[in-house]
């Protein structure tokens, strides 16, 4: 309903848009000479036959490489007297045109191909071959809400094309970006098929919020989520992707305003091309290898260790371990868990069309079994894209995609990998009678053994199914020369279903007597309605490109969860099979909405000076009335020096300097309301406020300054792109950091209010070098090298709180800290300064204290003893070392962020052969090897835990001939067996902080296109491509765990606010994959 005040109020809000439109009108109505001849559109179809010396010319235009006719190529002719004629090629690539005079020039342009100018002279039939664009400057690249030539870019952005993507085996598109784009740090948080991936573009710009970029897939905006077993785009078939543009510079991202602080990844899917229908079938078969085993103890070593432990700590040695030499190897749990597994992918696509309509259609089936039992990923996808041009002034496009993914996450959610590393080799996988075996109740410490991980991953069902429908409709109307109105409606409907069935079992001591099924369903709906006016105007050497637009978006989600227990068989995973009296359910829903006005003006003077300015105004439902709207402007400028007259350096073919500045934002996740949470009580539903409301918090702002340089040498054989940037984020939106006494921490608490908490800064640079090293007639060698570095610093907290902690209670309260002056989430702990070698050394050193602050005694049983860890005395209450080891001596012991990361691709092609090698590298980050920490603790033998072999060399204090207590093995680094108050194994120390740097041969692929003369005998087949490849074949690293690419912890117990970064607690490793690929064109 529109009331009068509402109309006036609305009118005010439109003033902004009105001003921009008026500007556009002014430009348009300016009387200029160019306007007078404005009768043919850029890609005009109408044939103008006015003129005096008409001559008919016809011809055929083909692709220089494929020799296929090209449909819809624009052929224009400018006569000497300034008259203009034009046409386009038909379905067979043919055209015919009346030209004004024989001396005129034909200009042939086609998107994706090099422009050609031909003087027909006296010829009346021309056979023209167009070369696909190879030099990147003319390449059309996708930018926010539009397209441009790469050479016209004034902002930092990287584009990865389908050609690059095809080289690697990528389950998901995020994987494909790894090592290919400067400034983009990709870490695979889990090697689990379809598993979660983090992408950080130019550092992290949030402390507790999501640091993932905004993804825009064919106009559908998808905000990346941090913690997930799924990668954000696991549903997207990588083979459908035409190009991926990673927007990094402020001028490129600011057009997405409040959603773009973490960068924007624009994904465009393939469109049909006019011409014969192209049918492609592609099948890929992969073999995934298990990881290389970590060296843990076998049963003989284990038995001997149990023996030694009991001797030191007391207790009875179990009979079977009295003589360990009689034992076998026992169970190799890693071998049992990890297997070589297949992955298969079928892909069928069809594309084609004519000058009016083009289409692309594809279908995919992918099935990946994980190398660890209890993991897997399947995807079914279908996509259809149709573009139609019903009138010369209108185009309509439709785009539909449907996909389903099925993921098995039992391994990741059940601590299966860490249990496989920790379970005693004494426990068999199965008993003689075929039942699952486990730590028994009669055999010493085996009641503390983890539950058989093979059994757990075989028995438990933990799967997620996602179905997604993505689609859009867009209409573009040419209103007059240069002025286009576009409107699009895009939507995304997602449906998820999860099944978690915990069966009844009896495995050794572990018994589950009641089976439980949890089912969850969720539905989310998103739509985006967008209207844009675009105006393009060339006046002499001045080119203007103006866009104004309005966009509204809304999303809603709704979840339903239900469970029952008491299933009498373990075969039926449906709630109906459970006990109705145990029914239980949960709900949840939420809305979100945003409205935006946006505008962009680009100005180009003779390709020499390029200027771009954008402004976006976002209104978000996340804010209270006084802060609803935010402005996000940007300005960028590029100067192509190489176009200047004075510039005369022969070997420099292009030189462009760029400067840009702009603001992006973040609207957080809400917090202006105080919702009442519910809880069951004996007297009906009880209510408690969930959160302190704060209607006054403001937009988070990130202001970025960027300078950039593009330089190309030797006719673009070598091109270099360099960017340096400083990103300053202020008004960081996050929950207030409050002391525990504020009652905002724990069950039943009121969550802290959402506030603008602090400020942080990212400073960094990125470098990309593309070279064409060798080109001969048949052989070509090209390289891409990129390297990036970023330093993140928290610069300020607005409150008196000086740090934020992230504590993982399930890992002995392992903690990461964000504090002013350093990068977020540094590891916290003590510094282990070796082991005490003598009593004298203990007495002279700082040691831990009791509750009253008194030194622990120097004593083997109740205090500190030889063979205990010596902790470094770092500080005390007065900021100086005080001779006591207490919480003041905890410090930052590791940094999960790399100092540098990069990728190096080399491609060689010889005739139909192509070889591509991708090397990725990450340098200077730390990993906390939590598995090593736990598996090197000799005390854990008492809990039936297997250990890394190194733990057998635990410190052994003895009394020497002089009566002094010394270590029998003074060179060991493993502390003595003791539960003493020194906390050898309970304190977190830097001993397990390892350098996570690595250089990895990420991918080698070798392909062969069968020569045409060979195939021509087979009438049906037009082309055949064979390829073999290998992923993750070799990694150079000092890291001692399975795989140095650790990323964020996505296992049990974690949520976005507690997600540990850079800790390896049995992360699902990436392993080598061998690929065989066959592609056929029909």
């Amino acid at each position, binding site marked *: 309903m529109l009331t009068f005040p509402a109309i006036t109020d609305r009118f005010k809000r439109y003033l902004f848009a009105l001003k921009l439109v008026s500007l556009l009108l002014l430009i348009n109505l300016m009387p200029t000479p160019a306007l007078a001849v404005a009768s043919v559109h850029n890609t005009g179809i109408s044939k103008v036959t006015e003129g005096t010396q008409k001559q008919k010319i016809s011809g055929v235009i083909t692709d220089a490489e494929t020799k296929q006719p090209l449909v819809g190529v624009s052929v224009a002719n400018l006569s000497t007297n300034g008259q203009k004629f034009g046409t386009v090629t038909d379905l067979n690539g043919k055209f015919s045109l009346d030209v004004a005079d024989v001396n005129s020039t034909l200009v042939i342009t086609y998107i994706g191909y090099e422009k050609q100018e031909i003087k027909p002279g006296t010829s009346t039939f021309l056979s023209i071959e167009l070369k696909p664009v190879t030099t990147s400057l003319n390449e059309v690249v996708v930018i926010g809400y539009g397209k441009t030539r790469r050479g016209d870019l004034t902002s930092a952005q990287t584009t990865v094309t389908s050609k690059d993507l095809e080289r690697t085996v990528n389950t998901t598109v995020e994987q494909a970006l790894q090592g290919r784009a400067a400034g983009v740090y990709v870490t695979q948080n889990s090697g689990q098929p379809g598993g979660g991936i983090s992408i950080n573009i130019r550092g992290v710009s949030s402390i507790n919020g999501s640091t993932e970029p905004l993804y825009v897939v064919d106009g559908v905006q998808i905000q990346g989520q941090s913690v997930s077993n799924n990668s954000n785009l696991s549903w997207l078939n990588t083979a459908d992707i035409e190009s991926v543009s990673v927007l990094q510079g402020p001028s490129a991202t600011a057009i997405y305003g409040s959603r773009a602080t973490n960068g924007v990844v624009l994904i465009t899917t393939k469109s049909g091309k006019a011409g014969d229908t192209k049918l492609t079938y592609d099948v890929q078969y992969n073999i995934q290898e298990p990881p290389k085993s970590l060296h843990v103890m076998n049963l003989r070593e284990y038995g001997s260790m149990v023996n030694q432990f009991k001797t030191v700590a007391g207790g009875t040695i179990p009979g079977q371990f009295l003589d360990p030499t009689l034992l076998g190897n026992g169970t190799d749990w890693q071998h049992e868990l990890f297997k070589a597994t297949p992955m298969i992918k079928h892909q069928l696509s069809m594309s084609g069309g004519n000058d009016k309509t083009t289409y692309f259609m594809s279908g995919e089936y992918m099935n990946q079994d994980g190398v660890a039992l209890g993991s897997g990923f399947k995807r079914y996808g279908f996509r259809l894209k149709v573009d139609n041009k019903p009138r010369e002034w209108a185009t309509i496009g439709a785009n539909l995609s449907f996909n389903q993914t099925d993921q098995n996450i039992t391994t990741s959610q059940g601590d299966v990998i860490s249990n496989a590393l920790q379970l005693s080799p004494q426990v068999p996988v199965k008993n003689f009678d075929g039942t699952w075996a486990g730590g028994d109740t009669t055999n010493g410490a085996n009641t503390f053994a983890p539950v058989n991980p093979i059994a757990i991953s075989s028995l438990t069902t933990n799967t997620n199914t996602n179905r997604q429908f993505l689609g859009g409709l867009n209409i573009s109307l040419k209103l007059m020369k240069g002025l286009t109105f576009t409107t699009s409606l895009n939507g995304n409907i997602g449906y998820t279903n999860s099944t978690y069935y915990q069966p009844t079992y009896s495995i050794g001591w572990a018994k589950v007597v009641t089976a439980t099924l949890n089912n969850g369903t969720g539905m989310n709906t998103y739509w985006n309605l967008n209207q844009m006016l675009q105006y393009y105007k060339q006046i002499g050497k001045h080119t203007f490109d103006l866009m104004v637009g309005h966009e509204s978006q809304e999303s809603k989600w709704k979840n339903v969860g239900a469970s029952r227990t008491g299933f009498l068989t373990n075969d039926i995973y449906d709630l109906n099979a459970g006990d109705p009296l145990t029914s239980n359910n949960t709900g949840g829903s939420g809305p979100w909405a945003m409205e935006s006005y946006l505008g962009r003006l680009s100005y180009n003077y003779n390709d020499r000076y390029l200027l771009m300015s954008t402004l976006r105004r976002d209104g978000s439902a996340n804010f209270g009335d006084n802060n609803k709207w935010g402005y996000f402007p940007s300005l960028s400028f590029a100067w192509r020096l190489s176009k200047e007259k004075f510039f005369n350096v022969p070997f420099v073919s292009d030189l462009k300097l760029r400067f840009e500045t702009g603001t992006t934002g973040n609207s957080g996740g809400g917090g202006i309301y105080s919702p009442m949470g519910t809880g069951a009580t004996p007297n009906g539903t009880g209510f408690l406020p969930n959160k302190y409301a704060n209607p006054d918090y403001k937009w988070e702002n990130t202001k970025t300054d960027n300078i950039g340089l593009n330089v190309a040498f030797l006719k673009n054989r070598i091109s270099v792109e360099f960017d340096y940037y400083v990103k300053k984020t202020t008004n960081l939106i996050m929950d207030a950091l409050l002391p525990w*006494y504020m009652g905002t921490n724990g069950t039943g608490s009121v969550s802290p209010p959402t506030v603008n908490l602090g400020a942080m800064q990212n400073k960094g640079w990125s470098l990309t070098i593309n070279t064409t090293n060798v080109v001969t007639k048949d052989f070509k060698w090209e390289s891409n090298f990129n390297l990036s570095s970023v330093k993140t610093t928290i610069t300020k907290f607005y409150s008196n709180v000086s740090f934020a902690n992230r504590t993982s209670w399930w890992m002995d309260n392992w903690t990461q800290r964000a504090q002013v002056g350093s990068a977020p989430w540094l590891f916290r702990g003590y510094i282990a300064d070796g082991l005490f070698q003598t009593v004298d050394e203990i007495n002279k050193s700082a040691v831990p204290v009791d509750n009253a602050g008194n030194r622990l005694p120097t004593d083997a049983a109740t205090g500190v003893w030889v063979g205990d860890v010596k902790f470094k005395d770092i500080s005390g209450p007065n900021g100086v070392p005080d001779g006591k080891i207490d*919480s003041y001596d905890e410090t930052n012991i590791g940094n999960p962020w790399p100092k540098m990361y990069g990728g190096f691709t080399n491609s060689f092609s010889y005739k139909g052969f192509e070889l591509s090698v991708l090397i990725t590298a990450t340098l200077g980050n730390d990993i906390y090897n939590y598995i090593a920490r736990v598996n090197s603790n000799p005390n854990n033998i008492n809990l039936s835990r297997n250990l890394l072999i190194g733990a057998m060399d635990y410190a052994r204090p003895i009394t020497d001939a002089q009566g002094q207590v010394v270590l029998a093995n003074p060179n060991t680094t493993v502390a003595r067996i003791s539960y003493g108050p020194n906390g050898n194994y309970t304190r977190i120390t830097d001993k397990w902080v390892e350098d996570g740097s690595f250089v990895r041969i990420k991918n080698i692929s070798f392909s062969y296109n069968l020569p045409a003369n060979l195939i021509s005998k087979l009438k049906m087949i037009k082309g055949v491509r064979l390829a073999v490849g290998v992923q993750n074949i070799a990694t150079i690293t000092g890291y001692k765990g399975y795989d140095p690419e650790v990323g964020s912890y996505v296992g049990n117990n974690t949520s976005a606010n507690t997600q540990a970064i850079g800790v390896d607690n049995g992360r699902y490793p990436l392993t080598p994959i061998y690929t065989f690929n066959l592609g056929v064109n029909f």
Partner: protein
Amino acid sequence: MKMKNLNRKYFWLGMLLPFVFMLGCSKSFLQRPPTDSIVDANFYKTDAQVLAATQLLYSKVWFDYNDKASYNLGDFRSGTAYDAYNNRGNVLFNTTGDTPENGTAWRSFFIVVGQSNLAIININKYAGAEVSPQVKKVAIAEARFMRALAYRFLVMNWGPVPIITNNQALFADTSLTRNTEKSVWKFIVNEMKAVEADLPNTPIKPGRITKWSAQGMLARFYLTRSGVGANGSGQRNQSDLDSAKYYSQSVINNSGAALLKNYSDLFLFPYDNNAESLFSLQWVYSGPNDWGTQNSTPAYLAYSSEIANGDGWGGNIGATWWMISQYDGMTSIGKGDTIIGRTVDTRLKATFMLPGASYPEITQALNSGVVQKLIYPNSTSDVSFVCTKKYITGKAIDVGGQSSSQRYGNDTYMMRLAEMYLIYVEATLGNNASTTDATAYTYFNKVHMRSGLPEYRLSSTGTLLPITLDVIYKERFIEFAMEGMGWYDLVTLHYFNKAKAYAILNSQDRGLFTAKPDVFPNPTQWTFIKTAWSTTGRTINAYDGNFLLPIPTAELSQAPNLLKPAVDY
């Protein structure tokens, strides 16, 4: 041609512009209140809503305390029970700033404070004309009651703590300092007195607090506070003792509460809100997914999944050697490393499980597949445990299907009438070495004799047995073992007699032992033998430096203002 072009241009612009302008969204497009919960400003509008807003102050806000901290602090630290392999810091009286239960307890009590404060503020702010003054008054009184009780736990565990009555006012203020123990006690006693006047004589809904709950708390608070001025060694304040006596007498006479006939019935499902309860946490079982409104403690104390629901992780938690020795009939023999005996005190069987003891109300699923009524198993090892019975209600089948792993519906007593009798006796004893007051004997024996023990008055030779502090404390330890009380009794004692508190603690044996029945099942006598090879960690050293809990380390680093000297409130 040109004209025509221009016309087309204006035509389109004319058509388009209004269209573009109409695409702006209405103002409500950007107003999106939550769709899955009501917001505070729209709540508290009816009597039912206001009462629903204080109902969870009886459960969820206490959850983290009840979970593990209740027995870790209340029983492990006081020496009633021990855990052989975990929670060693608390068992060995070495709770540090990093001990998990120190942090959870601290946080949980302040959650009670924060939610109570918010309830008071929101009710005052949002309750409209539809809410009756009586309901508003009672609801606010409930919140003040909870807050005062949380402060009683805070001041007794950590000494000086900051008094907070409006959390929202402190968001930007980090200058808050701790308040002295004396002023915290003054605050909570005054609060409870005000609440006592506002609460009804009968519960407004089942299980909700009454005037008598508040008077009972006043009796408890006055008894403890009587020692606060004594600085660890000195006289208890007589007027506080008189108040304790007055309020306990009032509850005994006027509340209508009565002791259950059998002690074991106090913990026999279903027992919630029985005649003896003055205030219990109101847990409820509401399915296998809900968290925070259920009683989770039984999961950690039940000795095995044999008698639990996939949980039952308390197999290494049991009565200490010292606790066993407190029961009548348990005689120490030899060099003190063997106890032999039996007891007529029914509280032992209702609190701890002795090998061979049978509990027909609990189902036991043995490894062999046999399902039977529970007979607590016998162990042949040189280490075995006298595990917890109190609050353990068994499998789902034993409670009408109303339980699952870590989720139990049985309530936790926060105060029951038996305590009033013992408070009366202790207040009567006051600063005297002993008392022979007739009412004190009567009240003492109400508690003592219910458990099957003979009257405490005359010895077998006919001499008068006086009631001393030792007698009262022993009775309290036995009566309230595994109810999280022992530690707070020691803190009460510590206020006026530090030396005695340390002496009790330091005399306890908290080490490993084994318990053997003479026959199995249906034993008539047990032998308890200290585990010979277990020589460390048998005793503790309580002293001034480790008696109270240190404020959690993490809290001190984020709130260094707590290091400043405490001030009066």
